[in-house]
Protein backbone atom coordinates (compact mmCIF):
# COMPACT_ATOMS: atom_id res chain seq x y z
CA UNK A 1 0.00 0.00 0.00
CA UNK A 2 2.60 2.50 1.13
CA UNK A 3 5.03 1.82 -1.67
CA UNK A 4 2.47 2.20 -4.41
CA UNK A 5 1.17 5.34 -2.75
CA UNK A 6 4.67 6.80 -2.44
CA UNK A 7 5.25 6.09 -6.10
CA UNK A 8 2.02 7.69 -7.26
CA UNK A 9 2.55 10.60 -4.87
CA UNK A 10 5.85 11.39 -6.56
CA UNK A 11 4.47 11.30 -10.06
CA UNK A 12 1.21 13.13 -9.36
CA UNK A 13 3.16 15.87 -7.62
CA UNK A 14 5.74 16.12 -10.35
CA UNK A 15 3.39 16.20 -13.33
CA UNK A 16 1.07 18.82 -11.88
CA UNK A 17 3.60 20.54 -9.64
CA UNK A 18 4.64 23.45 -11.83
CA UNK A 19 1.08 24.48 -12.63
CA UNK A 20 0.03 23.84 -9.04
CA UNK A 21 2.76 26.17 -7.83
CA UNK A 22 1.47 28.91 -10.11
CA UNK A 23 -2.10 28.24 -9.00
CA UNK A 24 -1.11 28.32 -5.33
CA UNK A 25 0.90 31.52 -5.65
CA UNK A 26 -1.62 33.52 -7.68
CA UNK A 27 -4.45 32.09 -5.61
CA UNK A 28 -2.72 33.18 -2.43
CA UNK A 29 -2.38 36.68 -3.88
CA UNK A 30 -6.10 36.59 -4.68
CA UNK A 31 -6.96 36.66 -0.98
CA UNK A 32 -6.15 40.34 -1.41
CA UNK A 33 -7.86 40.77 -4.77
CA UNK A 34 -9.68 44.04 -3.90
CA UNK A 35 -6.65 45.42 -2.10
CA UNK A 36 -4.36 44.70 -5.07
CA UNK A 37 -6.84 46.42 -7.38
CA UNK A 38 -6.91 49.45 -5.13
CA UNK A 39 -3.12 49.58 -4.93
CA UNK A 40 -2.98 49.44 -8.71
CA UNK A 41 -5.26 52.46 -9.06
CA UNK A 42 -3.67 54.93 -6.64
CA UNK A 43 -5.42 57.91 -8.25
CA UNK A 44 -8.84 56.65 -7.27
CA UNK A 45 -10.26 58.40 -4.24
CA UNK A 46 -13.45 56.60 -3.33
CA UNK A 47 -16.55 58.27 -1.95
CA UNK A 48 -18.58 56.00 0.29
CA UNK A 49 -22.29 56.10 -0.45
CA UNK A 50 -25.21 53.93 0.70
CA UNK A 51 -25.68 50.70 -1.23
CA UNK A 52 -28.99 51.82 -2.67
CA UNK A 53 -27.33 54.88 -4.15
CA UNK A 54 -24.51 52.80 -5.64
CA UNK A 55 -27.10 50.52 -7.25
CA UNK A 56 -28.90 53.52 -8.78
CA UNK A 57 -25.78 55.06 -10.25
CA UNK A 58 -24.58 51.74 -11.66
CA UNK A 59 -27.93 51.04 -13.33
CA UNK A 60 -27.96 54.53 -14.83
CA UNK A 61 -24.54 53.93 -16.37
CA UNK A 62 -25.47 50.49 -17.69
CA UNK A 63 -28.74 51.77 -19.17
CA UNK A 64 -26.73 54.36 -21.06
CA UNK A 65 -23.92 52.07 -22.18
CA UNK A 66 -25.25 48.52 -22.48
CA UNK A 67 -29.03 48.89 -22.68
CA UNK A 68 -29.86 45.87 -24.81
CA UNK A 69 -27.75 43.26 -23.05
CA UNK A 70 -29.10 39.93 -21.93
CA UNK A 71 -27.79 40.19 -18.39
CA UNK A 72 -26.00 42.57 -16.08
CA UNK A 73 -24.24 41.49 -12.96
CA UNK A 74 -23.46 44.25 -10.51
CA UNK A 75 -21.25 43.76 -7.48
CA UNK A 76 -22.07 46.52 -5.05
CA UNK A 77 -19.15 48.20 -3.28
CA UNK A 78 -17.94 46.69 -0.03
CA UNK A 79 -15.62 48.00 2.64
CA UNK A 80 -12.79 46.40 0.69
CA UNK A 81 -13.53 47.08 -2.98
CA UNK A 82 -14.91 50.60 -2.51
CA UNK A 83 -16.10 50.52 -6.11
CA UNK A 84 -19.01 49.05 -7.99
CA UNK A 85 -18.04 46.26 -10.37
CA UNK A 86 -20.23 45.41 -13.32
CA UNK A 87 -20.15 42.53 -15.79
CA UNK A 88 -22.37 42.58 -18.84
CA UNK A 89 -23.36 39.75 -21.12
CA UNK A 90 -24.59 40.55 -24.63
CA UNK A 91 -27.47 38.68 -26.22
CA UNK A 92 -26.18 35.69 -28.14
CA UNK A 93 -25.95 36.26 -31.86
CA UNK A 94 -29.04 34.69 -33.44
CA UNK A 95 -26.83 33.25 -36.16
CA UNK A 96 -25.60 29.96 -34.62
CA UNK A 97 -22.49 30.00 -36.79
CA UNK A 98 -21.33 33.36 -35.53
CA UNK A 99 -18.29 33.14 -33.25
CA UNK A 100 -18.96 33.39 -29.55
CA UNK A 101 -18.55 36.93 -28.36
CA UNK A 102 -15.52 37.27 -26.12
CA UNK A 103 -16.19 37.70 -22.43
CA UNK A 104 -16.24 41.38 -21.62
CA UNK A 105 -13.90 42.61 -18.90
CA UNK A 106 -15.27 43.96 -15.67
CA UNK A 107 -16.09 47.65 -15.48
CA UNK A 108 -15.27 49.43 -12.24
CA UNK A 109 -17.60 52.29 -11.45
CA UNK A 110 -17.44 55.08 -8.93
CA UNK A 111 -20.35 54.36 -6.59
CA UNK A 112 -21.10 58.05 -6.11
CA UNK A 113 -21.28 59.11 -9.74
CA UNK A 114 -21.70 55.85 -11.64
CA UNK A 115 -18.94 56.86 -14.01
CA UNK A 116 -16.09 54.48 -14.78
CA UNK A 117 -13.28 55.08 -12.33
CA UNK A 118 -10.88 57.67 -13.59
CA UNK A 119 -7.62 55.99 -12.86
CA UNK A 120 -4.93 54.12 -14.72
CA UNK A 121 -6.36 51.23 -16.69
CA UNK A 122 -5.43 47.91 -15.11
CA UNK A 123 -6.70 44.40 -14.65
CA UNK A 124 -5.76 44.72 -10.98
CA UNK A 125 -6.16 41.85 -8.56
CA UNK A 126 -8.71 40.40 -10.95
CA UNK A 127 -5.80 39.26 -13.13
CA UNK A 128 -4.22 37.01 -10.50
CA UNK A 129 -7.65 35.74 -9.58
CA UNK A 130 -8.52 34.76 -13.14
CA UNK A 131 -5.09 33.33 -13.83
CA UNK A 132 -5.42 31.21 -10.71
CA UNK A 133 -8.07 29.00 -12.35
CA UNK A 134 -7.94 29.89 -16.06
CA UNK A 135 -4.17 29.94 -16.49
CA UNK A 136 -4.46 32.53 -19.27
CA UNK A 137 -5.54 29.80 -21.68
CA UNK A 138 -8.55 30.01 -24.02
CA UNK A 139 -11.88 29.10 -22.44
CA UNK A 140 -12.57 26.38 -21.39
CA UNK A 141 -9.13 24.76 -21.58
CA UNK A 142 -7.58 26.74 -18.76
CA UNK A 143 -10.33 25.72 -16.39
CA UNK A 144 -10.08 22.08 -17.42
CA UNK A 145 -6.32 22.09 -16.95
CA UNK A 146 -6.67 23.78 -13.56
CA UNK A 147 -9.26 21.18 -12.57
CA UNK A 148 -7.02 18.34 -13.70
CA UNK A 149 -4.13 19.73 -11.66
CA UNK A 150 -6.41 20.16 -8.64
CA UNK A 151 -7.44 16.52 -9.05
CA UNK A 152 -3.76 15.52 -9.14
CA UNK A 153 -3.27 17.58 -6.01
CA UNK A 154 -6.12 15.77 -4.29
CA UNK A 155 -4.60 12.44 -5.25
CA UNK A 156 -1.18 13.63 -4.08
CA UNK A 157 -2.58 14.72 -0.72
CA UNK A 158 -4.39 11.44 -0.11
CA UNK A 159 -1.44 9.30 -1.22
CA UNK A 160 0.93 11.54 0.74
CA UNK A 161 -1.02 11.02 3.94
CA UNK A 162 -1.00 7.24 3.42
CA UNK A 163 2.72 7.31 2.62
CA UNK A 164 3.73 9.37 5.60
CA UNK A 165 3.50 6.86 8.39
CA UNK A 166 4.89 8.96 11.23
CA UNK A 167 2.74 11.96 10.67
CA UNK A 168 2.88 13.15 14.26
CA UNK A 169 6.34 11.95 15.14
CA UNK A 170 7.87 14.30 12.58
CA UNK A 171 5.56 17.11 13.42
CA UNK A 172 8.25 19.48 14.67
CA UNK A 173 11.27 18.20 12.78
CA UNK A 174 12.99 20.62 10.46
CA UNK A 175 16.74 20.27 10.00
CA UNK A 176 18.72 22.70 7.89
CA UNK A 177 21.75 22.04 5.67
CA UNK A 178 21.35 18.28 5.51
CA UNK A 179 20.72 17.90 1.79
CA UNK A 180 17.91 15.60 0.86
CA UNK A 181 16.84 15.16 4.48
CA UNK A 182 16.27 18.91 4.83
CA UNK A 183 14.11 19.02 1.71
CA UNK A 184 12.11 16.08 3.00
CA UNK A 185 11.70 17.78 6.39
CA UNK A 186 10.60 21.03 4.80
CA UNK A 187 8.15 19.19 2.53
CA UNK A 188 6.71 17.23 5.46
CA UNK A 189 6.43 20.20 7.79
CA UNK A 190 4.78 22.49 5.23
CA UNK A 191 2.43 19.69 4.20
CA UNK A 192 1.53 18.21 7.58
CA UNK A 193 1.22 21.34 9.70
CA UNK A 194 -1.17 22.94 7.22
CA UNK A 195 -2.76 19.69 6.09
CA UNK A 196 -6.33 20.75 6.94
CA UNK A 197 -5.81 23.85 4.84
CA UNK A 198 -4.31 22.00 1.85
CA UNK A 199 -7.03 19.37 1.81
CA UNK A 200 -9.72 22.00 2.24
CA UNK A 201 -8.43 24.36 -0.43
CA UNK A 202 -7.99 21.57 -2.97
CA UNK A 203 -11.38 19.96 -2.54
CA UNK A 204 -13.26 23.22 -2.28
CA UNK A 205 -11.39 24.48 -5.33
CA UNK A 206 -12.82 21.61 -7.33
CA UNK A 207 -16.24 22.45 -5.93
CA UNK A 208 -16.05 26.05 -7.19
CA UNK A 209 -16.22 24.78 -10.77
CA UNK A 210 -18.17 21.60 -10.12
CA UNK A 211 -20.98 22.53 -12.50
CA UNK A 212 -18.46 22.50 -15.33
CA UNK A 213 -16.41 19.52 -14.16
CA UNK A 214 -19.24 17.24 -13.07
CA UNK A 215 -22.52 18.31 -14.71
CA UNK A 216 -23.90 14.78 -14.98
CA UNK A 217 -25.85 14.67 -11.68
CA UNK A 218 -27.74 17.75 -12.90
CA UNK A 219 -28.67 16.04 -16.14
CA UNK A 220 -30.03 13.07 -14.21
CA UNK A 221 -32.37 15.22 -12.17
CA UNK A 222 -33.39 18.16 -14.31
CA UNK A 223 -34.95 18.11 -17.77
CA UNK A 224 -33.49 21.60 -18.28
CA UNK A 225 -29.97 22.03 -16.83
CA UNK A 226 -30.45 25.76 -16.16
CA UNK A 227 -33.22 24.88 -13.69
CA UNK A 228 -30.59 23.70 -11.20
CA UNK A 229 -28.81 27.05 -11.19
CA UNK A 230 -32.15 28.83 -10.95
CA UNK A 231 -33.12 26.82 -7.90
CA UNK A 232 -29.75 27.57 -6.32
CA UNK A 233 -29.15 31.26 -6.82
CA UNK A 234 -31.85 32.69 -9.01
CA UNK A 235 -29.85 32.74 -12.20
CA UNK A 236 -32.14 34.20 -14.82
CA UNK A 237 -30.17 32.98 -17.81
CA UNK A 238 -32.96 30.60 -18.72
CA UNK A 239 -35.69 33.22 -18.84
CA UNK A 240 -36.95 34.37 -22.20
CA UNK A 241 -37.48 38.01 -23.03
CA UNK A 242 -41.03 38.94 -23.93
CA UNK A 243 -39.95 41.25 -26.72
CA UNK A 244 -41.97 44.14 -25.31
CA UNK A 245 -39.86 47.05 -24.12
CA UNK A 246 -40.01 47.87 -20.44
CA UNK A 247 -38.24 50.19 -18.03
CA UNK A 248 -36.68 49.03 -14.77
CA UNK A 249 -38.14 50.39 -11.56
CA UNK A 250 -35.91 52.29 -9.11
CA UNK A 251 -33.05 49.97 -8.19
CA UNK A 252 -32.50 51.58 -4.79
CA UNK A 253 -35.91 50.37 -3.65
CA UNK A 254 -35.03 46.77 -4.50
CA UNK A 255 -31.85 47.01 -2.47
CA UNK A 256 -33.64 48.52 0.50
CA UNK A 257 -36.46 45.97 0.36
CA UNK A 258 -34.09 42.99 0.17
CA UNK A 259 -31.86 44.33 2.91
CA UNK A 260 -34.87 44.84 5.15
CA UNK A 261 -35.99 41.26 4.50
CA UNK A 262 -32.53 40.06 5.58
CA UNK A 263 -32.62 42.01 8.86
CA UNK A 264 -30.30 44.69 7.55
CA UNK A 265 -27.70 42.39 5.95
CA UNK A 266 -26.08 43.91 2.91
CA UNK A 267 -26.61 43.05 -0.73
CA UNK A 268 -23.54 41.66 -2.45
CA UNK A 269 -24.71 41.30 -6.01
CA UNK A 270 -27.55 42.27 -8.31
CA UNK A 271 -28.33 40.23 -11.40
CA UNK A 272 -30.59 41.93 -13.92
CA UNK A 273 -32.04 39.71 -16.62
CA UNK A 274 -33.25 41.24 -19.90
CA UNK A 275 -32.93 44.77 -18.50
CA UNK A 276 -34.76 46.55 -21.35
CA UNK A 277 -37.65 44.09 -21.54
CA UNK A 278 -41.12 44.15 -20.01
CA UNK A 279 -40.36 40.78 -18.38
CA UNK A 280 -37.07 41.85 -16.84
CA UNK A 281 -36.07 40.28 -13.55
CA UNK A 282 -33.93 41.64 -10.73
CA UNK A 283 -32.25 39.14 -8.43
CA UNK A 284 -30.47 40.35 -5.31
CA UNK A 285 -28.02 38.16 -3.45
CA UNK A 286 -27.21 38.47 0.20
CA UNK A 287 -23.62 39.12 1.21
CA UNK A 288 -21.58 36.13 2.33
CA UNK A 289 -19.11 38.22 4.30
CA UNK A 290 -20.69 37.55 7.66
CA UNK A 291 -21.09 33.80 7.30
CA UNK A 292 -19.27 30.76 5.95
CA UNK A 293 -21.76 29.94 3.24
CA UNK A 294 -20.68 32.16 0.36
CA UNK A 295 -23.78 31.40 -1.64
CA UNK A 296 -26.10 33.80 0.10
CA UNK A 297 -29.86 33.84 0.00
CA UNK A 298 -31.46 35.52 -2.98
CA UNK A 299 -34.71 37.33 -3.75
CA UNK A 300 -36.04 37.87 -7.25
CA UNK A 301 -38.30 40.76 -8.21
CA UNK A 302 -40.09 41.64 -11.40
CA UNK A 303 -37.97 44.42 -12.83
CA UNK A 304 -40.75 46.68 -14.09
CA UNK A 305 -43.54 46.27 -11.54
CA UNK A 306 -41.26 45.63 -8.57
CA UNK A 307 -43.37 42.66 -7.48
CA UNK A 308 -41.55 40.07 -5.37
CA UNK A 309 -41.47 36.95 -7.52
CA UNK A 310 -39.48 34.41 -5.55
CA UNK A 311 -36.86 33.88 -2.90
CA UNK A 312 -34.31 31.12 -2.63
CA UNK A 313 -35.55 28.41 -0.29
CA UNK A 314 -33.63 27.74 2.89
CA UNK A 315 -30.77 25.49 1.77
CA UNK A 316 -30.82 21.82 2.70
CA UNK A 317 -27.73 20.07 4.10
CA UNK A 318 -26.12 19.35 0.74
CA UNK A 319 -26.63 22.82 -0.72
CA UNK A 320 -25.44 24.31 2.55
CA UNK A 321 -22.34 22.08 2.44
CA UNK A 322 -21.58 23.17 -1.10
CA UNK A 323 -22.06 26.81 -0.14
CA UNK A 324 -19.76 26.47 2.86
CA UNK A 325 -17.13 24.78 0.69
CA UNK A 326 -17.34 27.67 -1.74
CA UNK A 327 -17.10 30.11 1.15
CA UNK A 328 -14.06 28.36 2.60
CA UNK A 329 -12.29 28.55 -0.72
CA UNK A 330 -13.07 32.20 -1.39
CA UNK A 331 -12.31 33.29 2.18
CA UNK A 332 -14.72 36.23 2.08
CA UNK A 333 -15.76 35.47 5.64
CA UNK A 334 -12.27 36.15 6.92
CA UNK A 335 -11.66 39.41 8.73
CA UNK A 336 -8.24 41.11 8.46
CA UNK A 337 -6.35 38.77 10.81
CA UNK A 338 -7.85 35.57 9.42
CA UNK A 339 -7.19 36.82 5.90
CA UNK A 340 -3.52 37.24 6.68
CA UNK A 341 -3.53 33.80 8.26
CA UNK A 342 -5.05 32.37 5.07
CA UNK A 343 -2.41 34.23 3.06
CA UNK A 344 0.36 32.64 5.15
CA UNK A 345 -1.24 29.22 4.78
CA UNK A 346 -1.38 29.77 1.02
CA UNK A 347 2.34 30.54 1.08
CA UNK A 348 2.86 27.35 3.10
CA UNK A 349 1.12 25.55 0.24
CA UNK A 350 3.53 27.17 -2.24
CA UNK A 351 6.41 26.01 -0.06
CA UNK A 352 4.99 22.49 0.04
CA UNK A 353 4.75 22.28 -3.76
CA UNK A 354 8.16 23.89 -4.29
CA UNK A 355 9.97 21.69 -1.79
CA UNK A 356 8.23 18.65 -3.24
CA UNK A 357 9.44 19.54 -6.71
CA UNK A 358 13.00 20.10 -5.53
CA UNK A 359 12.88 16.90 -3.52
CA UNK A 360 12.10 14.95 -6.67
CA UNK A 361 15.37 16.06 -8.24
CA UNK A 362 17.50 15.88 -5.09
CA UNK A 363 16.41 12.31 -4.46
CA UNK A 364 17.42 11.16 -7.92
CA UNK A 365 20.79 12.85 -8.12
CA UNK A 366 23.74 10.53 -7.91
CA UNK A 367 27.08 12.06 -6.95
CA UNK A 368 29.24 12.60 -9.98
CA UNK A 369 26.71 11.19 -12.43
CA UNK A 370 25.79 13.11 -15.55
CA UNK A 371 22.16 14.24 -15.18
CA UNK A 372 19.88 12.38 -17.59
CA UNK A 373 17.54 14.33 -19.82
CA UNK A 374 14.42 13.98 -17.66
CA UNK A 375 16.37 15.21 -14.67
CA UNK A 376 17.63 18.31 -16.49
CA UNK A 377 14.12 19.00 -17.76
CA UNK A 378 12.64 18.81 -14.27
CA UNK A 379 15.42 20.93 -12.81
CA UNK A 380 14.92 23.61 -15.45
CA UNK A 381 11.14 23.61 -15.13
CA UNK A 382 11.51 23.87 -11.36
CA UNK A 383 13.60 26.99 -11.78
CA UNK A 384 11.15 28.38 -14.33
CA UNK A 385 8.16 27.86 -12.07
CA UNK A 386 9.42 28.40 -8.55
CA UNK A 387 12.02 31.13 -9.03
CA UNK A 388 10.80 32.92 -12.17
CA UNK A 389 7.03 33.22 -11.61
CA UNK A 390 7.54 35.53 -8.60
CA UNK A 391 9.66 37.76 -10.84
CA UNK A 392 6.79 37.87 -13.34
CA UNK A 393 4.27 38.79 -10.66
CA UNK A 394 6.55 41.56 -9.40
CA UNK A 395 6.98 42.78 -12.98
CA UNK A 396 3.19 43.00 -13.32
CA UNK A 397 3.07 45.30 -10.30
CA UNK A 398 6.14 47.26 -11.40
CA UNK A 399 4.68 47.80 -14.86
CA UNK A 400 1.62 49.26 -13.18
CA UNK A 401 3.73 52.00 -11.68
CA UNK A 402 6.20 52.52 -14.52
CA UNK A 403 3.89 52.59 -17.56
CA UNK A 404 2.38 56.05 -18.14
CA UNK A 405 -1.08 56.20 -16.53
CA UNK A 406 -2.81 57.33 -19.72
CA UNK A 407 -1.05 54.99 -22.15
CA UNK A 408 -3.47 53.20 -24.45
CA UNK A 409 -3.73 49.48 -23.86
CA UNK A 410 -1.67 49.66 -20.68
CA UNK A 411 -3.76 47.01 -18.90
CA UNK A 412 -2.71 44.45 -21.50
CA UNK A 413 0.87 45.68 -21.38
CA UNK A 414 0.97 44.98 -17.65
CA UNK A 415 -0.10 41.42 -18.33
CA UNK A 416 2.50 41.12 -21.10
CA UNK A 417 5.13 42.39 -18.69
CA UNK A 418 4.36 39.51 -16.37
CA UNK A 419 4.61 36.80 -19.01
CA UNK A 420 7.66 38.25 -20.78
CA UNK A 421 9.47 38.53 -17.48
CA UNK A 422 8.41 35.09 -16.31
CA UNK A 423 9.17 33.15 -19.47
CA UNK A 424 12.04 35.41 -20.51
CA UNK A 425 13.83 34.92 -17.23
CA UNK A 426 13.16 31.18 -17.37
CA UNK A 427 14.62 31.05 -20.89
CA UNK A 428 17.68 33.08 -19.90
CA UNK A 429 18.28 30.84 -16.90
CA UNK A 430 18.91 27.97 -19.32
CA UNK A 431 22.21 29.62 -20.17
CA UNK A 432 23.52 29.19 -16.64
CA UNK A 433 24.48 26.07 -14.69
CA UNK A 434 21.64 24.80 -12.51
CA UNK A 435 22.87 26.04 -9.16
CA UNK A 436 23.87 29.46 -10.50
CA UNK A 437 20.52 29.66 -12.28
CA UNK A 438 18.66 29.06 -9.02
CA UNK A 439 20.68 31.67 -7.16
CA UNK A 440 20.44 34.28 -9.88
CA UNK A 441 16.74 33.91 -10.71
CA UNK A 442 15.82 33.97 -7.02
CA UNK A 443 17.96 37.07 -6.54
CA UNK A 444 16.36 38.78 -9.53
CA UNK A 445 12.90 37.96 -8.19
CA UNK A 446 13.90 39.42 -4.84
CA UNK A 447 15.23 42.58 -6.47
CA UNK A 448 12.07 43.02 -8.53
CA UNK A 449 9.89 42.72 -5.43
CA UNK A 450 12.13 45.18 -3.58
CA UNK A 451 11.75 47.56 -6.52
CA UNK A 452 7.95 47.61 -6.25
CA UNK A 453 7.70 49.83 -3.15
CA UNK A 454 10.50 52.04 -4.48
CA UNK A 455 8.61 52.55 -7.73
CA UNK A 456 5.47 53.19 -5.71
CA UNK A 457 7.14 55.91 -3.67
CA UNK A 458 8.84 57.45 -6.68
CA UNK A 459 5.83 57.49 -9.00
CA UNK A 460 2.92 58.16 -6.69
CA UNK A 461 5.04 60.62 -4.75
CA UNK A 462 5.35 61.15 -1.04
CA UNK A 463 5.23 58.57 1.67
CA UNK A 464 1.90 56.71 1.65
CA UNK A 465 -0.47 57.62 4.45
CA UNK A 466 -3.20 55.16 3.50
CA UNK A 467 -2.77 52.03 5.59
CA UNK A 468 -3.41 49.82 2.59
CA UNK A 469 -0.43 51.22 0.68
CA UNK A 470 1.86 50.95 3.69
CA UNK A 471 0.83 47.33 4.23
CA UNK A 472 1.18 46.49 0.54
CA UNK A 473 4.65 47.99 0.21
CA UNK A 474 5.80 46.37 3.44
CA UNK A 475 4.56 43.00 2.20
CA UNK A 476 6.55 43.49 -1.01
CA UNK A 477 9.69 44.08 1.04
CA UNK A 478 9.02 40.98 3.13
CA UNK A 479 8.52 38.88 0.00
CA UNK A 480 11.75 40.31 -1.38
CA UNK A 481 13.49 39.39 1.86
CA UNK A 482 12.12 35.84 1.70
CA UNK A 483 13.28 35.37 -1.88
CA UNK A 484 16.60 36.95 -1.06
CA UNK A 485 16.99 34.57 1.86
CA UNK A 486 16.26 31.64 -0.47
CA UNK A 487 18.90 32.88 -2.90
CA UNK A 488 21.41 33.33 -0.09
CA UNK A 489 20.72 29.85 1.32
CA UNK A 490 21.15 28.30 -2.11
CA UNK A 491 24.44 30.13 -2.52
CA UNK A 492 25.67 29.27 0.96
CA UNK A 493 24.85 25.59 0.76
CA UNK A 494 27.90 23.42 0.19
CA UNK A 495 27.77 21.24 -2.88
CA UNK A 496 25.45 18.38 -2.12
CA UNK A 497 27.49 15.56 -3.56
CA UNK A 498 30.64 16.43 -1.68
CA UNK A 499 28.99 16.55 1.71
CA UNK A 500 29.92 13.56 3.85
CA UNK A 501 27.17 11.93 5.84
CA UNK A 502 27.39 13.11 9.40
CA UNK A 503 26.67 10.72 12.18
CA UNK A 504 23.38 11.64 13.76
CA UNK A 505 21.56 10.11 16.73
CA UNK A 506 19.97 6.76 16.02
CA UNK A 507 16.54 8.18 16.56
CA UNK A 508 16.91 10.26 13.44
CA UNK A 509 18.83 7.89 11.23
CA UNK A 510 16.23 5.22 10.69
CA UNK A 511 14.50 5.37 7.35
CA UNK A 512 11.47 7.40 8.13
CA UNK A 513 9.92 7.87 4.79
CA UNK A 514 8.81 5.65 2.05
CA UNK A 515 9.49 8.45 -0.39
CA UNK A 516 13.08 7.35 0.02
CA UNK A 517 12.28 3.84 -1.11
CA UNK A 518 10.32 4.74 -4.20
Amino acid at each position, binding site marked *: *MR*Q*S*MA*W*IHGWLGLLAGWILFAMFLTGTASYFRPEITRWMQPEYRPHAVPQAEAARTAIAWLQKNAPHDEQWTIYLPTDRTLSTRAFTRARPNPDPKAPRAPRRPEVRLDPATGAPIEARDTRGGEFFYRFHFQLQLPHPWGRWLAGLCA*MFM*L*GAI*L*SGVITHKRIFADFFTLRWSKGQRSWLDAHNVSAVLALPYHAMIT*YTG*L*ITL*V*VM*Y*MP*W*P*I*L*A*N*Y*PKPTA*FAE*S*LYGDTAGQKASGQPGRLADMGRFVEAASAEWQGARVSRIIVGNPDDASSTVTLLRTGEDRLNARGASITYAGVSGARLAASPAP*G*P*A*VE*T*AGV*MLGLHLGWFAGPLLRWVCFLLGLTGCAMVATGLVLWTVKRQRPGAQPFFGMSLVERLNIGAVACLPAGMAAFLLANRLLPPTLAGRADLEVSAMFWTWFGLAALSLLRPVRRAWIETLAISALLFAAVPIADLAVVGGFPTDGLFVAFDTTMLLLAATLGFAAWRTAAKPARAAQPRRRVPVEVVEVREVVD*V*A
Partner: protein
Amino acid sequence: MASAQLGGQGWSMAGRSLTALIGGYAAAAGLATLLARLLPVERVEATAWGMILSFLFYAAFGLWAFHEPRLTRVAAVIWGTAVIAGGAALLLGVRP
Protein backbone atom coordinates in the same frame (compact mmCIF):
# COMPACT_ATOMS: atom_id res chain seq x y z
CA MET B 1 4.38 -1.69 -6.27
CA ALA B 2 7.81 -0.33 -6.99
CA SER B 3 8.64 1.97 -9.84
CA ALA B 4 10.75 -0.67 -11.55
CA GLN B 5 7.80 -3.01 -11.79
CA LEU B 6 5.56 -0.32 -13.20
CA GLY B 7 8.01 1.61 -15.30
CA GLY B 8 9.23 -1.47 -17.10
CA GLN B 9 6.17 -2.02 -19.23
CA GLY B 10 5.33 1.07 -21.26
CA TRP B 11 2.03 -0.02 -22.74
CA SER B 12 0.60 -1.41 -19.56
CA MET B 13 1.59 1.81 -17.82
CA ALA B 14 -0.16 3.85 -20.50
CA GLY B 15 -3.27 1.68 -20.21
CA ARG B 16 -3.25 2.04 -16.46
CA SER B 17 -2.90 5.81 -16.65
CA LEU B 18 -5.70 6.12 -19.20
CA THR B 19 -7.91 3.88 -17.10
CA ALA B 20 -7.22 6.00 -14.03
CA LEU B 21 -7.62 9.33 -15.77
CA ILE B 22 -10.51 8.75 -18.16
CA GLY B 23 -12.05 5.56 -16.80
CA GLY B 24 -11.80 6.95 -13.28
CA TYR B 25 -13.64 10.07 -14.34
CA ALA B 26 -16.30 8.07 -16.15
CA ALA B 27 -16.79 5.74 -13.20
CA ALA B 28 -16.93 8.64 -10.73
CA ALA B 29 -19.37 10.52 -12.96
CA GLY B 30 -21.49 7.40 -13.34
CA LEU B 31 -21.60 6.73 -9.61
CA ALA B 32 -22.28 10.37 -8.76
CA THR B 33 -25.06 10.53 -11.32
CA LEU B 34 -26.65 7.32 -10.13
CA LEU B 35 -26.42 8.54 -6.54
CA ALA B 36 -28.00 11.87 -7.48
CA ARG B 37 -30.76 10.10 -9.38
CA LEU B 38 -31.57 7.53 -6.69
CA LEU B 39 -31.10 9.39 -3.38
CA PRO B 40 -34.56 9.69 -1.88
CA VAL B 41 -34.23 13.36 -1.02
CA GLU B 42 -35.17 16.57 -2.74
CA ARG B 43 -34.00 17.00 -6.32
CA VAL B 44 -31.62 19.87 -5.65
CA GLU B 45 -30.20 18.15 -2.55
CA ALA B 46 -29.59 14.85 -4.32
CA THR B 47 -27.89 16.68 -7.18
CA ALA B 48 -25.65 18.58 -4.81
CA TRP B 49 -24.66 15.42 -2.87
CA GLY B 50 -23.73 13.70 -6.12
CA MET B 51 -21.61 16.62 -7.22
CA ILE B 52 -19.90 17.10 -3.87
CA LEU B 53 -18.93 13.44 -3.52
CA SER B 54 -17.94 12.89 -7.16
CA PHE B 55 -14.33 14.07 -6.69
CA LEU B 56 -13.85 11.74 -3.76
CA PHE B 57 -14.95 8.83 -5.98
CA TYR B 58 -12.60 10.00 -8.73
CA ALA B 59 -9.64 10.27 -6.37
CA ALA B 60 -10.36 6.82 -4.90
CA PHE B 61 -10.57 5.20 -8.33
CA GLY B 62 -7.46 7.01 -9.52
CA LEU B 63 -5.32 5.95 -6.57
CA TRP B 64 -6.60 2.40 -6.53
CA ALA B 65 -5.77 2.05 -10.24
CA PHE B 66 -2.10 2.46 -9.34
CA HIS B 67 -2.29 0.40 -6.19
CA GLU B 68 -3.78 -2.79 -7.61
CA PRO B 69 -1.03 -4.75 -9.42
CA ARG B 70 -3.29 -6.65 -11.85
CA LEU B 71 -4.11 -4.35 -14.75
CA THR B 72 -6.98 -6.51 -16.02
CA ARG B 73 -8.68 -6.24 -12.68
CA VAL B 74 -8.15 -2.47 -12.60
CA ALA B 75 -9.60 -2.09 -16.08
CA ALA B 76 -12.50 -4.44 -15.38
CA VAL B 77 -13.56 -2.75 -12.17
CA ILE B 78 -13.16 0.84 -13.31
CA TRP B 79 -14.53 0.55 -16.82
CA GLY B 80 -17.15 -1.88 -15.55
CA THR B 81 -18.32 0.62 -12.93
CA ALA B 82 -18.41 3.34 -15.54
CA VAL B 83 -20.50 1.28 -17.95
CA ILE B 84 -22.86 -0.20 -15.36
CA ALA B 85 -23.42 3.00 -13.36
CA GLY B 86 -23.59 5.19 -16.45
CA GLY B 87 -25.87 2.72 -18.22
CA ALA B 88 -28.17 2.47 -15.24
CA ALA B 89 -28.37 6.25 -15.01
CA LEU B 90 -29.15 6.45 -18.71
CA LEU B 91 -31.84 3.76 -18.47
CA LEU B 92 -33.44 5.42 -15.48
CA GLY B 93 -33.65 8.68 -17.40
CA VAL B 94 -34.31 12.09 -15.93
CA ARG B 95 -35.99 12.12 -12.52
CA PRO B 96 -39.73 12.55 -13.10
